[in-house]
């Protein structure tokens, strides 16, 4: 099967949804296209195609190791989307549905992009496409968040374009032809001009790091995730950030081939630890449970960077963590969306006693919190354990200590907020508001399934998945 279908099918679905006349039936496009996408992705996952080295797009081992997680997350979120858009039937959903599907197509393209310029175009397109999703609620707060997202995200993405040009110039200056495919850049290796490679690395790390939400470029994230609907948060945090992370992984392997691997690893380690620290401190301070999820996402992006900095074992752990983070964070965003809808406010000062008002969503939220703070036997526990093991094997004692301290602080921060809103006696206003929200199977099953997948990933990581991660690591760390 042609992997291009992964891109074409969602884009065609988006076009159809844009012209579909009926507001009530249009949301069904989401799970329909999502299902086709999951089937195609897993078919390709089991029968990986042979990628020609100089192809601009291809289902290569790295795409194979990450894209199925995004596809799975999208399908489950799409099922949630049908129920969510039924509740929000007062809002026209033409743009919302079409854009979500377009994002799936663009994410598939971004994960498969083997050309620096193409990678930039798809990442930029995803950034822009997400804009209407962020202000779906049409409130002044949502527009404020969208503006900040556009300015910070736009500047970040502009810097990554500059970085891509610098890497191209590194190739030209080193006597190459300036071909921007990752294969040819890696093949040129030590021939790349050293000062330009370092400039490019800094700019690309800042640029794609902004998209990922690494501190200190994370400032758009709490605003955007706080104001967007839960389903959008789930897809942004579990899908869009991963494409930026794989971009950083691909660039890192070029930089390593050029002989600057140790410098790249050191910067990744420092920025990862800094992100975790900033996120942990903000988690201790925030009073908004949706912004809390954004800070938790910043923390997990830090964990991914730390993993990527720790050689082959660390990179495999990071790819594992992409899966466990995407699925767990998706579950948390969806159950938080339910609670937000029932409670009518995102602030822990106004919301109390959700265990009484929305018992099932609250239970899922608490279970999701234990999963995301790495309690066994959920996925994140095992992936973070592997990161710790890789870091101890590499003799990074201090880094490991900071890592574990941040995890502990984040645990305190998350439990403080979550038990604050779940426990206690509900306010009368919250009680009145929650009458409008019914916990149907449609809004409960998706977060439950995602949580179940996270548990399954932790308990029975399939051998084929491990093999896919190792294959991706072999692509990123070619043995000379």
């Amino acid at each position, binding site marked *: 099967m042609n992997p291009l279908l992964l891109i074409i099918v969602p884009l065609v679905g988006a076009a159809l949804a844009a012209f579909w006349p009926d507001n009530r039936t249009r949301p069904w496009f989401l799970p329909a296209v999502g299902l086709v996408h999951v089937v195609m992705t897993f078919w390709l996952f089991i029968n990986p195609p042979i990628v020609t080295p100089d192809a601009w797009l291809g289902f290569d081992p790295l795409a194979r190791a990450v894209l199925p997680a995004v596809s799975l997350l999208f399908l489950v979120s799409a099922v949630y989307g049908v129920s969510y858009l039924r509740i929000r039937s007062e809002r026209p959903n033409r743009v919302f549905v079409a854009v979500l599907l377009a994002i799936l197509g663009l994410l598939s393209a971004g994960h498969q992009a083997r*050309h620096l*310029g*193409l990678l*930039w*175009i798809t990442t*930029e*397109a995803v950034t*822009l496409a997400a*804009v209407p999703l962020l*202000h779906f609620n049409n*409130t*002044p*707060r949502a*527009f*404020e*968040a*969208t*503006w*900040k997202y*556009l*300015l910070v995200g*736009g*500047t970040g993405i*502009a810097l990554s*374009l*500059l970085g891509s*040009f*610098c890497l*191209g*110039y590194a*190739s*030209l*200056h080193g006597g190459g*032809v*300036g*071909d*921007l495919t990752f294969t040819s850049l890696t093949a040129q290796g030590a021939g790349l*001009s050293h*000062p*330009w490679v370092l*400039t490019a690395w800094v700019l690309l790390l800042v640029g794609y790091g902004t998209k990922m939400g690494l501190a200190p470029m994370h400032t758009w994230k*709490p*605003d955007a995730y*706080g*104001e967007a609907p839960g389903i959008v948060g789930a897809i942004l945090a579990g899908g869009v950030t991963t494409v930026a992370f794989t971009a950083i992984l691909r660039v890192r392997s070029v930089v390593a081939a050029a002989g600057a691997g140790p410098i790249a690893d050191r910067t990744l380690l420092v920025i990862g630890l800094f992100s975790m620290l900033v996120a942990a401190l*903000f988690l201790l*301070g*925030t009073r908004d449970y949706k*912004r809390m999820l954004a800070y938790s996402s910043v923390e997990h992006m830090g964990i991914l960077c730390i993993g990527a900095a720790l050689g082959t074992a660390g990179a495999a752990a990071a790819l594992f963590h992409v899966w466990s983070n995407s699925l767990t964070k998706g579950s948390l965003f969806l159950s938080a969306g339910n609670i937000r809808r029932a409670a009518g406010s995102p602030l822990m000062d106004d919301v109390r006693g959700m265990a009484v008002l929305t018992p099932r969503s609250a239970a899922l939220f608490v279970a999701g919190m234990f999963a995301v703070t790495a309690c066994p036997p959920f996925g994140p526990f095992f992936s973070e354990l592997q990161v710790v093991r890789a870091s101890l094997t590499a003799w990074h004692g201090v880094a490991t200590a900071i890592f574990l301290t941040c995890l502990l602080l984040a645990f305190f921060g998350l439990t403080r907020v979550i038990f604050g809103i779940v426990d206690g006696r509900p306010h009368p206003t919250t009680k009145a508001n929650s009458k409008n929200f019914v916990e149907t199977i449609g809004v409960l099953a998706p977060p439950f399934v995602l949580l179940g997948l996270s548990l399954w990933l932790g308990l029975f990581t399939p051998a084929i998945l491990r093999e896919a991660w190792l294959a991706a690591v072999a692509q990123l760390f070619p043995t000379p």
Partner: protein
Amino acid sequence: MSGTLNLLIGLAMGMNLLALGSSRLPALIRAMSIQGMLLGVMPLLMEHERLDWRVVLVALATIGGKGILIPGLLRRATRAANIEREIEPFIGFIPSLLLGAGGTIAAVALARALPLLPEHVGTLLVPGSLASILTGFILLIGRAKAIAQVCGYLILENGIYLFGLLLIHSTPLLVESGILLDVTVGVFIIGIIVDRIQRAFDSLDTRKLTTLRE
């Protein structure tokens, strides 16, 4: 050819200073629009032998997009929003100009430190690009009006475009046109959001956007 190219880049750098010193939105938009047109002409000057029709296409698209379409959209937004035309700065005009001038000198010095190919040594492409990027940042940080910030963002993009000209012979034009398309769509979307902010807040002063914080 390099002489004409340098002249144009010099003019574009002059536009940076003009943009930093403008106290009114229409003047800022005009400086940005002239800079966009200058950038559009440059790829034509960089062709050595015969003119490739694709380069001509990119040049025309750049002149049309950066020089006419986007500034036109911004002018319409200014009129439709009926905002006062004065730009309120966080960083005053004289300090911005001094920063911009200092930045331009620093850009020339920095460009000398980076290794360049022989055919690029004599051109102002790298200093011009760095100076425009810096100008863009000063405008993004130092102006309160949303439209002035958008102009800053576009000048930043112009700087990156200048850098991209170093690669014009090696990157396929497909990539360039994709980038141009993305930038144009981006400005469209920014324009829509500016319009919505105007309606929601009854103002385009970004100092009013302070609800979301810890």
